[in-house]
C-alpha cells in the first residue's frame, strides 16, 4: 500500500506552468458524513484525468466544490495560478470550468438552442433574440461533437443520452478550459460514448482539460493520461495511467482484491414463470414474444431506442399494450398497472432511479419498504421496529453507505441509491424481477455484490430475472440466455457465452 500512497507528492508529473487546476487540502462534511478529507489534486492543461473510487467516495462532491455548487469547509482552489476565493457556479463557468453532473438538471421546457446558450442567447442590434444565429451556432456546437439534434426541439423530449450531449455542447460553446464529466457512460450508449471520446480527444488537442469520472475502468485506461483514486473521502493515489493496472486500480479503490468479476453460474431453469407472446405497442414494440423460466436470468440488450425499456414497462403495466398476451405461471393475465404486477409477484426496477425509482426527499427506510409495507405487521398497524430491523439488514447485506436508515435517500451517492432500488425489490418479495440497468453508476465492488445477490436469489430462491443492460460484459457474464432487440423486435436469441461481436451483429442493422 505504501508504495501507492503519496506518489504525487514525491514526483510531480506535470510542471507548475502546465497546471490548470489545483485543489489543496479540500475538506467537506455533511451531517453524519465526512465526505472529503484533505484532498489535494491537480489537473494539467490538455490532460484527461480519470477520477475513480467506490460509491460514496466523494467524487461528485469534489466536483461540486470545483463548480462552486458546494462550499468547501476548508482548502483552496487555484486556477491557472490564481487562487479563487468564494467560487460560485457563475464565476467558475466564466473562468472556463464546466461540470456536467451525474444527475444534471436542465430546463426541460426550453429548446436545445436555449439550453446550450441559456442566458447568452445572441441578440440582434435591437436587443431582440436572434433565433437564426442561435440555431446556427447551436448546430455548430453540436457538429463539433458529431451529433445533430434539431435546435428547436424541447429538451424535455430528448433521451437522457441526447441531453448529456446537449450539456457537453453547452460547455464547448462556452469555451470551457476544463470539462468535468461525471459518469457520462452511465447514460450514454456505446455509439454515443465513442463519439464523445472522439470529441474529448479533439478538444484535448486544443488544450482543453477533462476530469473523467467512471466506474468502468476500461474507459479510464482508454482515455486518460492520469488516474486518481479516492477512497472514503481521502485521496489514495494519483499516477500516470501507465503505472496502473486494472487490478491495482481496483485494489486501491476497494482496499481489497476483488475476485472474478462475475459469479459462477450454475443454472437449472425450471418451468416457465413469465411468458409473453405477440406483445405490441405502436412503433416501440412489434410482436415481441419471450419466455422466462424459474431460476433463470435472461438478458435483453440492443442499442438505445431498440425498445428494451419499453418492453419492461409494457409487461408491468406501466404503458398500455395494444396487442399480445402475458402469461404468469401458465395463466393469461391482464396487467393493467404496476400495482397489479406487484400483486402478481412481478417486481420492476426502472431505468431512471431519480425520476421513476426513488422518492428523493424521503428516507432510505421509506424508499426500501414502500412497495410492500405488509411485511411489517398489517397495513393498518405498521410495526416500525420490525421495519427498521429489516431495512438495517438490507443496508448491511448490500453494503449501502448511509449515515442512518433515516437519511434522505437523495443525499446518498448514485451507486448507493441504486443499491437501495435493489433492496426495494428484495423487500417486495417478487418471484419475477424485471430490472433495467441493474448496475448503472455502481462501483466495481458493489457491482460484484449485486451480481452475487442476484445469482444467489435466482439459484437458491428460484427467482426469475429479466435484465436490460447496455453493458455487454454484464449481459454475457450474467445471463443464461440473451435476447437482442432491434427497432422494437427481438432480432435474435443467443445462448449463454455468445460473444460481443455476435450480439452487436444482431443489434445493428446490416
Amino acid at each position, binding site marked *: 500500500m505504501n508504495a501507492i500512497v503519496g506518489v504525487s507528492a514525491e514526483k510531480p508529473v506535470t510542471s507548475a506552468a502546465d497546471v490548470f487546476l489545483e485543489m489543496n*487540502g479540500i475538506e467537506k462534511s455533511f451531517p453524519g458524513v465526512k465526505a472529503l478529507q484533505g484532498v489535494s489534486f491537480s489537473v494539467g492543461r490538455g490532460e484527461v484525468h480519470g477520477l475513480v473510487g467506490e460509491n460514496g467516495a466523494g467524487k461528485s462532491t469534489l466536483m461540486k466544490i470545483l463548480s462552486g455548487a458546494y462550499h*468547501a*469547509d*476548508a*482548502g483552496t482552489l487555484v486556477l491557472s495560478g490564481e487562487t479563487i476565493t468564494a467560487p460560485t457556479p457563475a464565476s467558475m463557468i466564466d473562468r472556463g470550468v464546466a461540470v456536467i453532473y451525474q444527475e444534471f438538471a436542465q430546463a426541460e421546457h426550453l429548446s436545445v438552442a436555449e439550453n446550450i446558450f441559456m442566458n447568452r442567447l445572441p441578440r440582434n442590434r435591437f436587443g431582440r433574440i436572434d433565433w437564426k444565429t442561435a440555431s446556427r451556432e447551436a448546430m455548430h456546437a453540436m457538429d463539433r461533437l458529431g451529433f445533430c439534434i434539431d435546435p428547436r426541439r424541447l429538451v424535455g423530449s430528448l433521451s437522457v443520452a441526447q441531453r448529456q450531449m446537449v450539456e457537453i455542447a453547452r460547455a464547448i460553446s462556452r469555451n470551457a478550459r476544463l470539462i468535468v464529466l461525471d459518469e457520462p457512460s452511465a447514460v450514454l450508449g456505446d455509439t454515443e460514448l465513442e463519439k464523445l471520446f472522439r470529441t474529448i480527444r479533439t478538444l484535448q488537442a486544443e488544450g482543453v482539460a477533462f476530469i473523467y469520472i467512471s466506474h468502468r475502468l476500461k474507459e479510464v485506461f482508454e482515455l486518460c493520461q492520469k488516474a486518481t483514486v479516492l477512497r472514503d473521502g481521502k485521496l489514495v493515489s494519483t499516477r500516470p495511467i501507465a503505472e496502473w493496472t486494472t487490478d491495482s486500480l481496483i485494489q486501491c479503490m476497494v482496499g481489497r482484491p476483488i475476485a472474478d468479476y462475475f459469479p459462477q453460474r450454475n443454472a437449472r431453469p425450471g418451468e416457465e414463470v413469465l411468458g409473453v407472446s405477440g406483445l405490441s405497442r405502436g412503433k416501440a414494440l412489434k410482436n415481441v414474444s419471450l419466455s422466462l423460466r424459474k431460476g433463470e436470468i435472461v438478458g435483453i440488450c440492443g442499442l438505445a431506442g431498440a425498445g428494451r425499456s419499453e418492453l419492461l414497462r409494457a409487461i408491468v403495466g406501466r404503458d398500455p399494450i395494444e396487442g399480445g398476451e402475458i402469461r404468469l405461471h401458465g395463466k393469461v393475465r391482464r396487467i393493467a*398497472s404496476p400495482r397489479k404486477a*406487484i400483486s402478481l409477484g412481478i417486481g420492476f426496477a*426502472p431505468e431512471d432511479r431519480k425520476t421513476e425509482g426513488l*422518492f428523493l426527499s424521503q428516507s432510505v427506510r421509506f424508499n426500501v419498504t414502500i412497495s*410492500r409495507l405488509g411485511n411489517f405487521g398489517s397495513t393498518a398497524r405498521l410495526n416500525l421496529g420490525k421495519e427498521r430491523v429489516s431495512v438495517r439488514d438490507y443496508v448491511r447485506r448490500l453494503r449501502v453507505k448511509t449515515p442512518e436508515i433515516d437519511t434522505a435517500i437523495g443525499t446518498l451517492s448514485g451507486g448507493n441509491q441504486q443499491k437501495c432500488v435493489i433492496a426495494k425489490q428484495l423487500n417486495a418479495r417478487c418471484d419475477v424481477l424485471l430490472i433495467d440497468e441493474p448496475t448503472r453508476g455502481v462501483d466495481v465492488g458493489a457491482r460484484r455484490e449485486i451480481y452475487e445477490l442476484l445469482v444467489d436469489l435466482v439459484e437458491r430462491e428460484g427467482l426469475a430475472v429479466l435484465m436490460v443492460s447496455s453493458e455487454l460484459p454484464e449481459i454475457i457474464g450474467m445471463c443464461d440466455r440473451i435476447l437482442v432487440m432491434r427497432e422494437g423486435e427481438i432480432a435474435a436469441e443467443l445462448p449463454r457465452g455468445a460473444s460481443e461481436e455476435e450480439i452487436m451483429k444482431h443489434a445493428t442493422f446490416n
Partner: protein
Amino acid sequence: MASPNTMIETEERRFRLALPKGAGLIWVLAGLCILATLLSSSFLNPVNVMNVMRQVALFGIVSVGMTFVILTKGIDLSVGSILGVCAVTTALLLVGGWPVAAVVPLVLLIGVCMGALNGLGITLGGIPPFIMTLGMMVMGRGLALTLANGQPVGLGARAADFMWLGRGAMLGVPVPVWIFAAVAAIAIYVLRYTAYGRQIYAVGSNAEAAHLSGIDVGLVTFSVYVVSGFLASLTAIIFVSRLTVGEPTAGTGIELEAIAITVIGGTSLFGGEGGILGTIIGAGILAVLANIMNLLGISPFTQQIVKGAIIIGAVLYEMLRKRRARH
C-alpha cells in the same frame, strides 16, 4: 497564496445553527405565549385561555384535512364553502325537526360528498387541484347562500339540545378541543403507522415513482379530498353549535387560514414533507398571535397585514432552512 481557510464560511455555519427544524416551532409558540403574558394581564385569564383553545380547535380540525391534501402536493380551496353549506344544512335540518343523531351523520356525509366531487374532478377529470377546488369554493358558497336564502338560519328552540358540542366542556376542557385532540391523534396515527399514511407521502414526493411502486395514486389523491371535506363538515357542526345559528357565510376565508397554519407548521407546498404535529403548533401560533393583537386592541385590518407577512415569512424560512441543509 491565500490562507488555506479562504473558503471557510463562518457566517453561513452560524446562520445554519440558528435555524431550527420543524420541531423548533414549539419554541416559537412558547415564546409567543410568554410575550402574550407580558403584554397583557388577561392572556392567562381562564376565559381567554378557553377561547384561544377553542379557536385552535376549530381552525386545527380543518387544517388537519388541509395537511393531508398538501402532503400529496394538492391544495383545497373549497373547505370554507363546504363549511358554509354544511353549516346551513345543519341549521335547516335541525329547525326542520330532525333529531341530532340523524343530522350529524347526514351533514358529515354532505362534506364527504363535496370532497369526493373535488377528488373525482382532480383524479378522473385531470383538473388541477387549484382550479377544481376554486370552482367548488365558488359553487359551494352559492349553494349555501341559496339554501339559506341569503339569511342566517337561527336554531331557535333547537339550540338547547345542540349547544353542547360547541359550548360544552368535559373535565374543564371545551368539547371542540377534545374533538380536535381526537382528530389530530387519529391523523398522526394514520400518517405514521399505516400504509395509507406512507402512500400519501409517496404520492406527494414523486407520483411516478409511487405509481411504479404499486400505489394507486388516483385513489390516494381522491381520498385526501374526501378527508378534507369530512373535516370541514365536522367543523361546520361545531360552528353551528357554538353560534346557535347557521350562517351561509360561515367559514369564509378559513381555507387561507388553514393553508397558512399548515405551511407555518412546516408542511411543504411541494408535497411529501411535513406532518400533523407541525400543523397543531401552527394553529397554536396563529391563534395566540391573533389573541395578542385582539387583547392589545389592534385593528382587524392591521391584523391581516401581520398575518400575511407571517405566512410569507414562514415559507421563506422553510426554504432558507432547506437550502442551508443542502450545502
